[in-house]
């Protein structure tokens, strides 16, 4: 479990409503930068339901209440796991710093052990809670970790898209490349393909629904499909609240131990 700010910030793919129809040309890097730097509000509260669906269609469901806050120098997030039963009341806290040279700080509280443990933030290629999303997929990826190339512009169902291919600079990275279909009007990546080390298609991310909350667009339904193993994960956000003035005291060990 890691960097879950990002569950809200990127999986939700919050963007500002104050956009204008894009008529100018952007480089691929500028397009991805606009995707990564979407306005998110100062704080956000939401309820996440994550459904893991295996090849035969059997489902496992994880429910999480989550809070995020941008304090200016860092973004803090805290998650409270509500189900399944064996992880109920487990909480996870992440502090991500604006300084790219400073690693995230992460803690997990295990209610059975009654202990808050600092954990390593070094496993960005690990899958989050057995899902098809890695921590990087959830937003840990930095803009210049990849080389971006605009490989096309398409119109699908009347909507204009940029098609950007991103190739990691680290040759050992788990993906050889990704392709992202980005709406020109909102800079939301509505579809993303992930290719494995052999350049075979591994996963496809589909954004199924986004809604407006307090002037921000929030993607509330997304699905990641591992096409090689034919299993999927859906993430559905509900009870989304933006800029409610969450107190700094929400992001402390006290709250991790107390619960929601």
């Amino acid at each position: 479990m890691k960097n879950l700010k990002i569950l809200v910030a990127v999986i939700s793919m919050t963007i500002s409503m104050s956009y204008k129809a894009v008529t100018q040309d952007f480089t691929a890097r500028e397009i991805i930068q606009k995707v990564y730097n979407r306005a998110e509000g100062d704080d956000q509260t939401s309820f996440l339901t994550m459904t893991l669906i295996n090849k035969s269609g059997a489902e496992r469901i994880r429910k999480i209440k989550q809070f995020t806050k941008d304090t200016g120098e860092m973004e803090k997030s805290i998650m409270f796991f509500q189900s399944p039963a064996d992880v109920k009341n487990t909480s996870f806290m992440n502090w991500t710093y604006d300084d790219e040279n400073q690693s995230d700080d992460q803690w997990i509280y295990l209610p059975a052990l009654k202990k808050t443990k600092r954990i390593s933030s070094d496993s960005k290629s690990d899958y989050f809670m057995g899902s098809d999303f890695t921590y990087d997929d959830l937003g840990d990826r930095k803009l210049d970790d990849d080389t971006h190339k605009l490989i096309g512009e398409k119109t699908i169902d009347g909507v204009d898209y940029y098609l950007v291919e991103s190739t990691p600079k680290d040759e050992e990275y788990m993906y050889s490349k990704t392709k992202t279909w980005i709406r020109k009007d909102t800079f939301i990546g509505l579809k993303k393909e992930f290719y494995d080390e052999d350049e075979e298609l591994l996963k496809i991310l589909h954004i199924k629904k986004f809604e407006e909350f307090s002037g921000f667009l929030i993607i509330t339904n997304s699905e990641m499909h591992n096409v090689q193993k034919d299993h999927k994960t859906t993430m559905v956000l509900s009870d989304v609240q933006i800029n409610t003035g969450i107190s700094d005291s929400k992001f402390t060990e006290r709250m991790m131990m107390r619960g929601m």
Partner: protein
Amino acid sequence: MKTKGLMFILLLTASQVLIAQNVDINGFARTYEGALYNNGNFGIIQQTLNLTFEQLGDKVAFKVNPMAYLYNADSLDFRMRELYLDLYFKNFDIRIGNQQVVWGKADGVFITDIVSPLNLTEFLLPDFDEIRKGVIATKINYYLGNSTFEAIWIPAFTPTERPQPGSIWYVQPDFPVPPTWDLSKETITPSLENSEVFLKYTALTSAIDFELMGAYTWDDNPTLHVEKQFGIDSATMQPSLLGLNITPEHHRLTIGGGSFSSEIKGVILRGEAAYYNGKYFLTEDPLQPDGNIQKDYLHYLVGLDFNIGSVMFSSQFIQQTILDYENDILNEKTENTMTFLACYDMLRETMHLELFSYIGLTNEDALIRPKVTYDFDDSFSILLGSNIFVGDEKGRFGQYKENSMIYTKLKYSF
């Protein structure tokens, strides 16, 4: 047995009432069987029901956590793991009642983690969330930013629970002659004077997390005061030991210590240490009339947690040192132990592989605990594991060589 059964029925009845009042209820049912490698006998046949009733409000919360253990077919052990009330204020919280308290950064080792006594009736084999006993206490936490000041007052001392004769975990003390036991001083009378006090300061920062603690407590393990009776051997006409009168007695301890954890390039570095003032140790020094001597004692640990690929590793080095050591003391001057843990999750985190071991460096013995857990679904899991004791039979782990076992646990969580 009859009383415990009645309590259990009352509890189930109470649970119906709590359900009606929208109290959050969860827990697990578990069956646990283990067979000894040595002779195929079952070393453990245990059925467990764990119920947790919780209600969390903005200002008040409560938790009730009874556990029932049925051993074999007829021995019911009912334990109230926790039963407490929380009061929440702006900058501080108060918890009153039967509670478990966990301190420190060590895993599976108890250094500054001394508030809740242990249940060692099955050695160190129970899950660590079940090995601690609840204590009736008042705990106050005061919060200042990311710092916490914690004070705990325990009015009635509860000692560590140890295996009784008849248990496969009971170790018969080795005495030169059969002793007589005087248990008149074993119990601490609950009183203000006999209460325990624990203090802790915790800071959780981006660079480092640390705790500083102090305690005025009782030694969980009783000191065995030995009175020797001598006579004249009629054959040799030399003085000889005729008898031993042993009086177990808990003594006061003053303890200070601390712990920390920090991340350095993806590796979690942990440390923990405690200084025990005036702990009693058995000695053969003839100048010590009751066979004991008081010495200060240091217990510390350093540990690393790190990942290689998707495998999580953790290792700890632990040292216990008696300061100002004298050669007549029966304990070794230093005792070194290591722990090692490797974990790997596969099949979308439905299968969990784990290897945990204690390695006694001083006595060259070990407890090795491999296990594999498979989650059939989100509620039901099966575990297959083994506890393997190896090494010198004088060692803490090697002494249980005959108790190496294979075991399985089936667990339903709700």
